[in-house]
Protein backbone atom coordinates (compact mmCIF):
# COMPACT_ATOMS: atom_id res chain seq x y z
CA UNK A 1 0.00 0.00 0.00
CA UNK A 2 0.86 3.65 -0.34
CA UNK A 3 2.13 5.40 2.71
CA UNK A 4 0.27 8.58 3.47
CA UNK A 5 2.33 11.62 4.34
CA UNK A 6 0.84 14.66 6.11
CA UNK A 7 2.67 17.87 5.22
CA UNK A 8 2.26 20.83 7.54
CA UNK A 9 2.29 23.41 4.76
CA UNK A 10 1.75 23.69 1.07
CA UNK A 11 4.70 22.61 -1.10
CA UNK A 12 7.09 25.52 -1.47
CA UNK A 13 10.82 26.18 -1.68
CA UNK A 14 11.33 24.94 1.89
CA UNK A 15 9.98 21.51 0.96
CA UNK A 16 12.06 21.10 -2.20
CA UNK A 17 14.67 18.98 -0.44
CA UNK A 18 12.01 16.77 1.05
CA UNK A 19 10.48 16.13 -2.36
CA UNK A 20 13.89 15.32 -3.79
CA UNK A 21 14.23 12.71 -1.06
CA UNK A 22 10.78 11.38 -1.86
CA UNK A 23 11.78 10.97 -5.49
CA UNK A 24 14.84 9.05 -4.45
CA UNK A 25 12.72 6.83 -2.21
CA UNK A 26 10.29 6.26 -5.01
CA UNK A 27 13.08 5.10 -7.24
CA UNK A 28 13.78 2.52 -4.55
CA UNK A 29 10.25 1.26 -4.55
CA UNK A 30 8.45 3.43 -1.99
CA UNK A 31 4.86 4.11 -2.92
CA UNK A 32 3.47 7.24 -1.31
CA UNK A 33 0.91 10.00 -1.47
CA UNK A 34 0.95 13.29 0.35
CA UNK A 35 -1.59 15.76 1.67
CA UNK A 36 -0.76 19.31 2.64
CA UNK A 37 -2.38 20.57 5.84
CA UNK A 38 -2.69 24.16 6.78
CA UNK A 39 -0.73 23.76 9.97
CA UNK A 40 1.32 21.39 12.02
CA UNK A 41 -1.44 20.71 14.54
CA UNK A 42 -3.66 19.34 11.83
CA UNK A 43 -0.93 17.08 10.55
CA UNK A 44 -0.47 15.78 14.08
CA UNK A 45 -4.21 15.32 14.47
CA UNK A 46 -4.37 13.43 11.20
CA UNK A 47 -1.66 11.01 12.28
CA UNK A 48 -3.24 10.66 15.71
CA UNK A 49 -6.54 9.62 14.25
CA UNK A 50 -4.86 7.20 11.86
CA UNK A 51 -5.93 8.96 8.70
CA UNK A 52 -2.32 9.69 7.82
CA UNK A 53 0.71 7.51 8.40
CA UNK A 54 3.60 9.92 8.64
CA UNK A 55 3.38 13.54 9.70
CA UNK A 56 5.42 16.71 9.74
CA UNK A 57 5.98 18.58 12.98
CA UNK A 58 7.30 18.37 16.52
CA UNK A 59 4.44 16.79 18.40
CA UNK A 60 6.04 16.67 21.84
CA UNK A 61 3.06 17.85 23.81
CA UNK A 62 0.74 15.57 21.88
CA UNK A 63 3.08 12.69 22.62
CA UNK A 64 2.89 13.33 26.32
CA UNK A 65 -0.80 14.07 26.49
CA UNK A 66 -2.42 11.69 24.10
CA UNK A 67 -2.60 7.98 24.54
CA UNK A 68 -1.20 7.36 21.10
CA UNK A 69 2.42 6.10 20.81
CA UNK A 70 3.83 8.68 18.39
CA UNK A 71 7.57 8.49 17.60
CA UNK A 72 9.90 10.79 15.67
CA UNK A 73 12.06 9.09 13.06
CA UNK A 74 13.94 11.89 11.36
CA UNK A 75 14.73 15.54 12.01
CA UNK A 76 14.00 17.58 8.91
CA UNK A 77 15.06 21.02 10.04
CA UNK A 78 16.28 22.85 13.07
CA UNK A 79 14.69 25.72 14.87
CA UNK A 80 16.77 28.35 13.19
CA UNK A 81 14.84 31.50 13.93
CA UNK A 82 16.05 35.02 14.34
CA UNK A 83 14.81 37.94 16.37
CA UNK A 84 14.48 40.83 13.95
CA UNK A 85 13.59 44.29 15.18
CA UNK A 86 13.62 47.82 13.99
CA UNK A 87 16.50 50.07 14.88
CA UNK A 88 15.08 50.82 18.32
CA UNK A 89 16.58 47.65 19.67
CA UNK A 90 20.06 46.27 19.23
CA UNK A 91 20.32 43.35 21.64
CA UNK A 92 17.98 40.83 23.20
CA UNK A 93 17.93 42.57 26.57
CA UNK A 94 16.38 45.64 24.97
CA UNK A 95 13.26 43.58 24.38
CA UNK A 96 12.47 43.25 28.06
CA UNK A 97 8.85 44.24 28.55
CA UNK A 98 8.44 45.01 24.84
CA UNK A 99 5.63 43.53 22.70
CA UNK A 100 6.64 40.84 20.25
CA UNK A 101 5.08 39.18 17.24
CA UNK A 102 5.23 35.38 17.07
CA UNK A 103 3.89 32.57 14.90
CA UNK A 104 1.32 30.91 17.15
CA UNK A 105 0.71 30.14 20.76
CA UNK A 106 2.57 26.96 21.66
CA UNK A 107 4.47 26.95 18.36
CA UNK A 108 8.20 27.02 17.66
CA UNK A 109 8.71 30.78 17.85
CA UNK A 110 6.70 30.81 21.05
CA UNK A 111 9.09 28.28 22.51
CA UNK A 112 12.04 30.37 21.40
CA UNK A 113 10.55 33.35 23.16
CA UNK A 114 10.06 31.25 26.30
CA UNK A 115 13.65 30.13 26.26
CA UNK A 116 14.92 33.64 25.65
CA UNK A 117 12.96 34.82 28.66
CA UNK A 118 14.37 31.95 30.63
CA UNK A 119 17.98 32.46 29.64
CA UNK A 120 18.01 36.23 29.76
CA UNK A 121 15.93 36.50 32.87
CA UNK A 122 13.35 38.94 31.57
CA UNK A 123 9.80 38.81 30.28
CA UNK A 124 8.54 40.04 26.94
CA UNK A 125 5.59 42.34 26.87
CA UNK A 126 2.40 41.38 25.09
CA UNK A 127 2.83 38.54 22.63
CA UNK A 128 0.69 38.66 19.54
CA UNK A 129 0.53 36.01 16.94
CA UNK A 130 0.64 36.10 13.16
CA UNK A 131 1.14 32.80 11.43
CA UNK A 132 3.72 32.85 8.64
CA UNK A 133 7.16 34.44 8.73
CA UNK A 134 6.47 36.39 5.56
CA UNK A 135 3.32 37.88 7.06
CA UNK A 136 5.30 38.93 10.10
CA UNK A 137 7.84 40.57 7.82
CA UNK A 138 5.04 42.53 6.21
CA UNK A 139 3.79 43.58 9.62
CA UNK A 140 7.29 44.63 10.56
CA UNK A 141 7.85 46.62 7.36
CA UNK A 142 4.42 48.21 7.63
CA UNK A 143 5.34 49.35 11.13
CA UNK A 144 2.63 47.32 12.81
CA UNK A 145 5.22 45.56 14.93
CA UNK A 146 8.62 46.51 16.28
CA UNK A 147 10.02 43.09 17.00
CA UNK A 148 9.41 39.61 15.74
CA UNK A 149 11.05 36.24 15.31
CA UNK A 150 11.32 34.97 11.73
CA UNK A 151 12.88 32.14 9.83
CA UNK A 152 16.20 32.04 8.03
CA UNK A 153 15.11 32.80 4.51
CA UNK A 154 12.92 35.70 5.49
CA UNK A 155 15.69 37.03 7.72
CA UNK A 156 18.04 36.95 4.76
CA UNK A 157 15.50 38.73 2.60
CA UNK A 158 15.05 41.47 5.16
CA UNK A 159 18.78 41.88 5.57
CA UNK A 160 19.29 42.01 1.83
CA UNK A 161 16.48 44.38 1.01
CA UNK A 162 16.00 46.54 4.09
CA UNK A 163 19.16 45.85 6.07
CA UNK A 164 19.48 49.52 6.89
CA UNK A 165 16.13 49.69 8.65
CA UNK A 166 16.18 46.54 10.75
CA UNK A 167 18.46 44.76 13.14
CA UNK A 168 18.97 41.03 13.47
CA UNK A 169 19.66 40.55 17.17
CA UNK A 170 22.46 38.16 18.02
CA UNK A 171 21.16 35.02 19.69
CA UNK A 172 22.43 31.74 21.10
CA UNK A 173 22.48 28.66 18.89
CA UNK A 174 19.52 26.31 18.87
CA UNK A 175 19.97 22.68 17.92
CA UNK A 176 16.40 21.51 18.59
CA UNK A 177 14.08 20.35 15.80
CA UNK A 178 11.63 22.62 14.07
CA UNK A 179 10.19 20.04 11.74
CA UNK A 180 10.56 16.31 12.19
CA UNK A 181 8.95 13.26 10.69
CA UNK A 182 6.87 11.22 13.08
CA UNK A 183 4.51 8.29 12.94
CA UNK A 184 2.62 5.90 15.11
CA UNK A 185 4.94 3.28 16.61
CA UNK A 186 2.65 0.38 15.68
CA UNK A 187 2.55 1.58 12.15
CA UNK A 188 6.35 2.01 11.97
CA UNK A 189 6.89 -1.51 13.21
CA UNK A 190 4.48 -3.07 10.79
CA UNK A 191 5.95 -1.09 7.86
CA UNK A 192 9.58 -1.43 8.77
CA UNK A 193 10.66 -1.84 5.15
CA UNK A 194 8.96 1.27 3.74
CA UNK A 195 10.17 3.36 6.62
CA UNK A 196 13.70 2.19 6.03
CA UNK A 197 13.62 3.11 2.33
CA UNK A 198 12.22 6.49 3.23
CA UNK A 199 14.77 7.26 5.92
CA UNK A 200 17.59 6.07 3.68
CA UNK A 201 16.49 8.45 0.97
CA UNK A 202 16.09 11.34 3.38
CA UNK A 203 19.49 10.79 4.93
CA UNK A 204 21.24 10.52 1.58
CA UNK A 205 19.58 13.67 0.32
CA UNK A 206 20.37 15.59 3.48
CA UNK A 207 23.99 14.47 3.29
CA UNK A 208 24.35 15.29 -0.41
CA UNK A 209 22.68 18.63 0.11
CA UNK A 210 25.15 19.56 2.82
CA UNK A 211 27.93 18.83 0.30
CA UNK A 212 26.30 20.73 -2.55
CA UNK A 213 23.11 22.72 -1.99
CA UNK A 214 22.44 23.09 -5.72
CA UNK A 215 21.63 19.40 -6.12
CA UNK A 216 18.16 20.25 -4.91
CA UNK A 217 17.32 22.40 -7.88
CA UNK A 218 19.10 19.95 -10.18
CA UNK A 219 17.23 16.93 -8.91
CA UNK A 220 13.84 18.59 -8.64
CA UNK A 221 11.36 16.84 -10.90
CA UNK A 222 9.99 19.51 -13.25
CA UNK A 223 6.60 17.79 -13.27
CA UNK A 224 6.42 17.35 -9.51
CA UNK A 225 4.77 19.70 -7.04
CA UNK A 226 7.95 21.76 -6.65
CA UNK A 227 8.76 21.86 -10.35
CA UNK A 228 5.31 23.31 -10.92
CA UNK A 229 5.87 26.33 -8.71
CA UNK A 230 6.02 29.74 -10.39
CA UNK A 231 9.34 30.60 -11.95
CA UNK A 232 9.79 33.44 -9.47
CA UNK A 233 10.09 30.88 -6.68
CA UNK A 234 12.15 28.28 -8.53
CA UNK A 235 14.75 30.89 -9.45
CA UNK A 236 15.55 31.38 -5.80
CA UNK A 237 15.89 27.73 -4.93
CA UNK A 238 19.69 27.61 -5.07
CA UNK A 239 20.01 30.78 -3.06
CA UNK A 240 17.63 29.48 -0.45
CA UNK A 241 19.46 26.18 0.04
CA UNK A 242 22.89 27.76 -0.02
CA UNK A 243 21.82 30.13 2.74
CA UNK A 244 20.12 27.33 4.64
CA UNK A 245 23.12 25.04 4.60
CA UNK A 246 25.35 27.92 5.60
CA UNK A 247 22.97 28.70 8.43
CA UNK A 248 22.97 25.08 9.61
CA UNK A 249 19.27 24.56 9.05
CA UNK A 250 19.58 20.99 7.83
CA UNK A 251 21.45 18.45 9.94
CA UNK A 252 23.37 16.02 7.77
CA UNK A 253 22.67 13.27 10.31
CA UNK A 254 18.90 13.68 10.50
CA UNK A 255 19.08 14.75 14.13
CA UNK A 256 19.68 11.39 15.63
CA UNK A 257 20.50 10.97 19.32
CA UNK A 258 22.14 14.36 19.47
CA UNK A 259 19.12 16.07 18.02
CA UNK A 260 16.78 14.11 20.25
CA UNK A 261 18.73 15.13 23.32
CA UNK A 262 18.66 18.75 22.21
CA UNK A 263 14.89 18.50 21.75
CA UNK A 264 14.37 17.09 25.24
CA UNK A 265 16.24 19.97 26.75
CA UNK A 266 14.80 22.63 24.53
CA UNK A 267 11.18 21.67 24.76
CA UNK A 268 11.38 21.14 28.50
CA UNK A 269 12.89 24.57 28.85
CA UNK A 270 10.24 25.99 26.56
CA UNK A 271 7.56 24.46 28.73
CA UNK A 272 6.13 22.08 26.19
CA UNK A 273 7.44 18.95 27.83
CA UNK A 274 6.62 18.32 31.43
CA UNK A 275 9.10 16.79 33.84
CA UNK A 276 12.84 16.99 34.34
CA UNK A 277 14.70 16.62 30.99
CA UNK A 278 17.16 14.19 32.55
CA UNK A 279 14.38 11.87 33.61
CA UNK A 280 12.69 11.92 30.19
CA UNK A 281 13.32 8.79 28.21
CA UNK A 282 14.36 9.54 24.62
CA UNK A 283 12.94 6.19 23.55
CA UNK A 284 9.48 7.47 24.45
CA UNK A 285 9.79 10.16 21.78
CA UNK A 286 12.14 8.93 19.12
CA UNK A 287 12.43 5.63 17.26
CA UNK A 288 16.04 5.44 16.23
CA UNK A 289 16.25 2.05 14.49
CA UNK A 290 15.70 3.16 10.87
CA UNK A 291 18.06 6.12 11.19
CA UNK A 292 20.72 3.96 12.83
CA UNK A 293 20.43 1.43 10.04
CA UNK A 294 20.68 4.15 7.40
CA UNK A 295 23.73 5.65 9.07
CA UNK A 296 25.34 2.22 9.17
CA UNK A 297 25.16 1.87 5.42
Amino acid at each position, binding site marked *: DKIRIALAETPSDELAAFFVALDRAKANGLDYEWTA*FSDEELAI*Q*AVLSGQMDIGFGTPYSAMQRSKAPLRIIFQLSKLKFFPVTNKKYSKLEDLAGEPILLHSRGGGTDSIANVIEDKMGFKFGKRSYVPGSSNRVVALIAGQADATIIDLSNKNKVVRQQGDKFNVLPMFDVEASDEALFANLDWIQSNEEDVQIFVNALLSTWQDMNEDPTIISKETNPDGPIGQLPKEILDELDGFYTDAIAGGLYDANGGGRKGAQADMEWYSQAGQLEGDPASLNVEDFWYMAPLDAAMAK
Partner: protein
Amino acid sequence: MKIFGIRLPRMSSLILWGLLWEIIGRIEFSFFVPPLSAVFATLFEIIGTAAFQKAMYETSYAFISGVFFAIVIGIPTGIIMGKNRLIDELLLPWVNIFLSAPLTALVPVLMVLFGFGMKSIIITTTLFAIWIIILNARAGVMQINRSLIEMAHSFGASSWEAFSKIYFWAALPEILGGVRIGVIRAVKGVIIGQLLISIVGFGALFELYSANFLMKHFWAVLIVLFALAFTISEVLAYLERRVSYYAAKR
Protein backbone atom coordinates in the same frame (compact mmCIF):
# COMPACT_ATOMS: atom_id res chain seq x y z
CA MET B 1 -30.59 50.89 -16.75
CA LYS B 2 -31.06 53.16 -19.69
CA ILE B 3 -28.75 55.88 -20.83
CA PHE B 4 -29.58 58.11 -23.79
CA GLY B 5 -32.25 55.61 -24.64
CA ILE B 6 -29.77 52.73 -24.92
CA ARG B 7 -30.37 49.83 -22.62
CA LEU B 8 -27.21 49.00 -20.64
CA PRO B 9 -26.78 45.31 -19.89
CA ARG B 10 -27.16 44.27 -16.26
CA MET B 11 -23.54 43.79 -15.35
CA SER B 12 -21.98 46.33 -17.67
CA SER B 13 -20.92 48.56 -14.81
CA LEU B 14 -18.25 45.99 -14.03
CA ILE B 15 -16.34 47.41 -17.01
CA LEU B 16 -16.28 50.75 -15.23
CA TRP B 17 -14.95 49.14 -12.09
CA GLY B 18 -12.33 47.27 -14.09
CA LEU B 19 -11.14 50.58 -15.52
CA LEU B 20 -10.93 52.06 -12.06
CA TRP B 21 -8.85 49.09 -10.99
CA GLU B 22 -6.52 49.53 -13.96
CA ILE B 23 -6.00 53.18 -13.09
CA ILE B 24 -5.31 52.44 -9.44
CA GLY B 25 -2.86 49.78 -10.56
CA ARG B 26 -1.16 52.10 -13.05
CA ILE B 27 -0.56 54.89 -10.57
CA GLU B 28 1.03 52.28 -8.33
CA PHE B 29 -1.24 53.16 -5.48
CA SER B 30 -0.27 50.00 -3.65
CA PHE B 31 1.96 47.03 -4.17
CA PHE B 32 -1.08 44.84 -3.56
CA VAL B 33 -3.03 46.15 -6.50
CA PRO B 34 -1.24 45.52 -9.79
CA PRO B 35 -2.94 46.85 -12.94
CA LEU B 36 -5.78 44.69 -14.15
CA SER B 37 -4.11 44.25 -17.53
CA ALA B 38 -1.01 42.80 -15.88
CA VAL B 39 -3.23 40.47 -13.88
CA PHE B 40 -4.86 39.25 -17.06
CA ALA B 41 -1.48 38.76 -18.69
CA THR B 42 -0.44 36.59 -15.75
CA LEU B 43 -3.74 34.80 -15.94
CA PHE B 44 -3.11 33.70 -19.50
CA GLU B 45 0.38 32.69 -18.53
CA ILE B 46 -0.62 30.42 -15.66
CA ILE B 47 -3.84 29.08 -17.08
CA GLY B 48 -1.93 26.55 -19.18
CA THR B 49 0.34 25.32 -16.41
CA ALA B 50 -0.11 21.89 -14.95
CA ALA B 51 -0.29 23.32 -11.45
CA PHE B 52 -3.20 25.52 -12.37
CA GLN B 53 -5.04 22.79 -14.17
CA LYS B 54 -4.53 20.42 -11.27
CA ALA B 55 -5.89 23.05 -8.90
CA MET B 56 -8.77 23.66 -11.23
CA TYR B 57 -9.50 19.97 -11.38
CA GLU B 58 -9.29 19.47 -7.62
CA THR B 59 -11.42 22.48 -6.90
CA SER B 60 -14.08 21.66 -9.45
CA TYR B 61 -14.16 18.06 -8.36
CA ALA B 62 -14.74 19.00 -4.72
CA PHE B 63 -17.15 21.75 -5.67
CA ILE B 64 -19.23 19.71 -8.08
CA SER B 65 -19.45 16.71 -5.79
CA GLY B 66 -20.25 18.90 -2.81
CA VAL B 67 -22.99 20.72 -4.64
CA PHE B 68 -24.27 17.47 -6.08
CA PHE B 69 -24.74 15.94 -2.64
CA ALA B 70 -26.22 19.13 -1.28
CA ILE B 71 -28.82 19.15 -4.03
CA VAL B 72 -29.56 15.45 -4.08
CA ILE B 73 -29.93 15.24 -0.32
CA GLY B 74 -31.17 18.75 0.35
CA ILE B 75 -34.12 18.98 -2.00
CA PRO B 76 -35.89 15.74 -0.99
CA THR B 77 -35.17 16.44 2.69
CA GLY B 78 -36.66 19.89 2.38
CA ILE B 79 -39.69 18.58 0.54
CA ILE B 80 -40.26 15.89 3.15
CA MET B 81 -39.90 18.43 5.93
CA GLY B 82 -42.42 20.65 4.24
CA LYS B 83 -44.86 17.74 3.97
CA ASN B 84 -44.47 16.02 7.28
CA ARG B 85 -44.93 17.92 10.48
CA LEU B 86 -43.24 15.37 12.74
CA ILE B 87 -40.07 15.13 10.66
CA ASP B 88 -40.12 18.88 10.30
CA GLU B 89 -40.27 19.45 14.01
CA LEU B 90 -37.47 16.96 14.59
CA LEU B 91 -35.14 18.39 11.97
CA LEU B 92 -35.94 22.07 11.72
CA PRO B 93 -34.03 23.22 14.83
CA TRP B 94 -30.90 21.53 13.53
CA VAL B 95 -31.26 22.89 10.06
CA ASN B 96 -31.59 26.36 11.54
CA ILE B 97 -28.61 25.82 13.79
CA PHE B 98 -26.40 24.62 10.98
CA LEU B 99 -27.58 27.37 8.69
CA SER B 100 -26.56 29.99 11.19
CA ALA B 101 -23.65 28.25 12.92
CA PRO B 102 -20.19 29.40 11.95
CA LEU B 103 -19.29 26.35 9.92
CA THR B 104 -15.65 27.35 9.92
CA ALA B 105 -15.59 26.42 13.58
CA LEU B 106 -17.00 23.01 12.71
CA VAL B 107 -14.38 22.28 10.09
CA PRO B 108 -11.90 20.87 12.63
CA VAL B 109 -14.57 18.47 13.84
CA LEU B 110 -15.30 17.35 10.31
CA MET B 111 -11.66 16.60 9.78
CA VAL B 112 -11.68 14.23 12.69
CA LEU B 113 -14.88 12.56 11.69
CA PHE B 114 -14.39 12.29 7.96
CA GLY B 115 -10.68 12.41 7.41
CA PHE B 116 -8.44 14.99 5.94
CA GLY B 117 -8.63 14.40 2.27
CA MET B 118 -11.02 15.31 -0.46
CA LYS B 119 -13.85 13.73 1.49
CA SER B 120 -13.81 16.40 4.19
CA ILE B 121 -13.54 19.17 1.65
CA ILE B 122 -16.52 17.78 -0.19
CA ILE B 123 -18.45 17.49 3.04
CA THR B 124 -17.53 21.06 3.99
CA THR B 125 -18.77 22.21 0.62
CA THR B 126 -21.97 20.24 1.06
CA LEU B 127 -22.48 21.66 4.54
CA PHE B 128 -22.11 25.18 3.30
CA ALA B 129 -24.69 24.63 0.60
CA ILE B 130 -27.22 22.19 1.93
CA TRP B 131 -29.05 24.04 4.72
CA ILE B 132 -30.35 26.88 2.66
CA ILE B 133 -31.38 24.40 -0.03
CA ILE B 134 -33.33 22.41 2.55
CA LEU B 135 -34.96 25.49 4.02
CA ASN B 136 -35.95 26.88 0.68
CA ALA B 137 -37.34 23.59 -0.60
CA ARG B 138 -39.29 23.34 2.64
CA ALA B 139 -40.60 26.87 2.29
CA GLY B 140 -41.50 26.13 -1.30
CA VAL B 141 -43.49 23.09 -0.32
CA MET B 142 -45.16 24.82 2.59
CA GLN B 143 -46.55 27.52 0.37
CA ILE B 144 -47.89 25.06 -2.19
CA ASN B 145 -51.46 25.68 -3.01
CA ARG B 146 -53.24 22.94 -1.06
CA SER B 147 -55.77 22.49 -3.80
CA LEU B 148 -53.07 21.36 -6.25
CA ILE B 149 -52.33 18.48 -3.92
CA GLU B 150 -55.99 17.75 -3.39
CA MET B 151 -56.53 17.91 -7.12
CA ALA B 152 -53.84 15.31 -7.72
CA HIS B 153 -55.34 13.13 -5.00
CA SER B 154 -58.80 13.47 -6.39
CA PHE B 155 -57.49 12.10 -9.67
CA GLY B 156 -55.86 9.24 -7.80
CA ALA B 157 -52.18 10.26 -7.84
CA SER B 158 -49.74 7.97 -6.01
CA SER B 159 -47.29 9.49 -3.51
CA TRP B 160 -44.47 9.26 -6.04
CA GLU B 161 -46.59 10.91 -8.69
CA ALA B 162 -47.56 13.62 -6.24
CA PHE B 163 -43.88 14.17 -5.45
CA SER B 164 -42.60 14.21 -9.01
CA LYS B 165 -45.53 15.90 -10.68
CA ILE B 166 -46.69 18.38 -8.07
CA TYR B 167 -44.42 19.05 -5.10
CA PHE B 168 -41.19 19.35 -7.03
CA TRP B 169 -42.57 21.63 -9.69
CA ALA B 170 -44.64 23.75 -7.39
CA ALA B 171 -41.65 24.36 -5.15
CA LEU B 172 -39.24 24.82 -8.05
CA PRO B 173 -38.90 28.60 -7.88
CA GLU B 174 -37.96 28.43 -4.20
CA ILE B 175 -35.79 25.39 -4.79
CA LEU B 176 -33.85 27.14 -7.51
CA GLY B 177 -33.46 30.21 -5.32
CA GLY B 178 -32.10 27.99 -2.58
CA VAL B 179 -29.76 26.22 -4.96
CA ARG B 180 -28.44 29.55 -6.19
CA ILE B 181 -27.63 30.80 -2.69
CA GLY B 182 -26.38 27.33 -1.80
CA VAL B 183 -24.02 27.19 -4.75
CA ILE B 184 -22.61 30.59 -3.90
CA ARG B 185 -22.03 29.46 -0.36
CA ALA B 186 -20.46 26.28 -1.70
CA VAL B 187 -17.79 28.30 -3.50
CA LYS B 188 -16.90 29.80 -0.15
CA GLY B 189 -17.07 26.38 1.44
CA VAL B 190 -14.74 24.75 -1.03
CA ILE B 191 -12.09 27.43 -0.60
CA ILE B 192 -12.44 27.50 3.18
CA GLY B 193 -12.19 23.71 3.17
CA GLN B 194 -9.09 23.86 1.01
CA LEU B 195 -7.52 26.43 3.27
CA LEU B 196 -8.43 24.92 6.61
CA ILE B 197 -8.31 21.19 5.99
CA SER B 198 -5.74 20.15 3.51
CA ILE B 199 -4.16 22.67 1.28
CA VAL B 200 -5.05 21.67 -2.22
CA GLY B 201 -6.59 23.21 -5.28
CA PHE B 202 -7.07 26.95 -5.49
CA GLY B 203 -6.66 27.21 -1.74
CA ALA B 204 -3.09 25.98 -2.14
CA LEU B 205 -2.42 28.46 -4.93
CA PHE B 206 -3.74 31.33 -2.81
CA GLU B 207 -1.63 30.25 0.10
CA LEU B 208 1.47 29.92 -2.05
CA TYR B 209 1.04 33.16 -3.94
CA SER B 210 0.22 35.26 -0.95
CA ALA B 211 3.06 33.78 1.12
CA ASN B 212 5.44 34.69 -1.66
CA PHE B 213 3.80 38.02 -2.47
CA LEU B 214 3.07 37.11 -6.07
CA MET B 215 0.25 39.59 -6.32
CA LYS B 216 -0.46 39.26 -10.02
CA HIS B 217 -0.74 35.52 -9.66
CA PHE B 218 -2.93 35.93 -6.63
CA TRP B 219 -5.38 38.23 -8.36
CA ALA B 220 -5.36 36.11 -11.49
CA VAL B 221 -6.57 33.05 -9.59
CA LEU B 222 -9.05 35.16 -7.67
CA ILE B 223 -10.48 36.49 -10.92
CA VAL B 224 -10.89 32.96 -12.23
CA LEU B 225 -12.83 32.11 -9.11
CA PHE B 226 -14.92 35.26 -9.26
CA ALA B 227 -15.75 34.48 -12.83
CA LEU B 228 -16.71 30.89 -12.09
CA ALA B 229 -18.88 31.73 -9.11
CA PHE B 230 -20.40 34.62 -10.94
CA THR B 231 -21.23 32.59 -14.02
CA ILE B 232 -22.82 29.80 -12.04
CA SER B 233 -24.87 32.20 -10.00
CA GLU B 234 -26.01 34.11 -13.07
CA VAL B 235 -26.95 30.91 -14.89
CA LEU B 236 -29.05 29.87 -11.92
CA ALA B 237 -30.54 33.33 -11.66
CA TYR B 238 -31.48 33.03 -15.30
CA LEU B 239 -33.17 29.69 -14.67
CA GLU B 240 -34.91 31.24 -11.72
CA ARG B 241 -36.27 34.01 -13.87
CA ARG B 242 -37.43 31.40 -16.34
CA VAL B 243 -39.68 29.81 -13.74
CA SER B 244 -40.51 32.94 -11.80
CA TYR B 245 -43.32 33.67 -14.23
CA TYR B 246 -45.36 31.22 -12.31
CA ALA B 247 -43.92 31.93 -8.90
CA ALA B 248 -46.31 34.78 -8.26
CA LYS B 249 -49.25 32.89 -9.67
CA ARG B 250 -49.27 29.63 -7.74
